[in-house]
């Protein structure tokens, strides 16, 4: 069974990491989680980003956050990626599979997946 003691162990482990985190988390993955996003399937997309980023060992560098309606409901699920010193990238009509691909190619490999960006569907 999961116990609170286990949670305390996670705390111990993470406190040691806090010091080396200066300047980390420079990349933000922002998922639109308003009614429009949720209805279009944003929940599995958000979960996929969290899981794949963790699997890729990018937790120190990338944070996943939620936002409300971005204003382009017809393109939901929408995800914006903010990287330091780079232009914002807006991905549209995502699925969990596409999210995994974006983590692999964009967040890990540094190459924007053009075919899923808003520019390619408009």
């Amino acid at each position: 069974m999961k116990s609170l003691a286990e949670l305390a162990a996670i705390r111990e482990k993470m406190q040691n990491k806090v010091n080396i985190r200066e300047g980390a988390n420079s990349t933000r993955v922002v998922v639109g989680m308003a009614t429009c996003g949720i209805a279009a399937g944003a929940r599995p997309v958000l979960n996929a980003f969290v899981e794949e980023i963790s699997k890729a060992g990018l937790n120190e560098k990338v944070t996943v956050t939620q936002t409300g309606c971005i204003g382009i409901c017809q393109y939901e699920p929408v995800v914006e990626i903010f990287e330091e010193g780079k232009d914002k990238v807006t991905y549209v009509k995502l699925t969990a599979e596409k999210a995994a691909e974006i983590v692999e190619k964009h967040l890990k490999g540094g190459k924007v997946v053009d075919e899923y960006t808003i520019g390619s569907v408009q």
Partner: protein
Amino acid sequence: MKELSLNILDVAKNSVTAGASKIEISLVTDAEGMLALTIKDDGCGMSEETVRNVTNPFYTTRTTRKVGMGLPLLKLAAEQSGGELVISSSRDEITHGTELIATFNTKSIDFTPVGDIISSVCILIAGSPEIDFVFTDVTPERSVSLNTAELRAVLGDDISLAEPEVQTWISEYLKEQYVSQ
């Protein structure tokens, strides 16, 4: 919405927007298969006029467009199964907050399945790690509960409930409660 847990994720965010410091989400299913969903917060509350209008899809507090679908969709889900949605709210200085109770007949063919409620609860916590969430899901056979204030007491102030490692723990903690009973 394909799952009731998606409505819950969506509507509970209204409580976050209302500035709540504590949000209680409870699902209680009785032996007859009637499910009562309660979402209760200590946020700023709504005026009587707003309460009257929130289930109208053409009413919204947003200024970017003229529709707001969150509560109308929850009301639809409740009513199509033979239940109802009741909202009460107070803007009183001390007792401010909102409580919504949606009832569902889980045996109705038009009942929307609850779906992945663990995922919705985790995402709500990750989105607002500073808020106290109290989650309970009770049926005659089992009882699942989570109180993030207790978790925060263990984690202290410097480790957020939104941390991926903590999120994984919460998800597994809930999963175990569901399968072990």
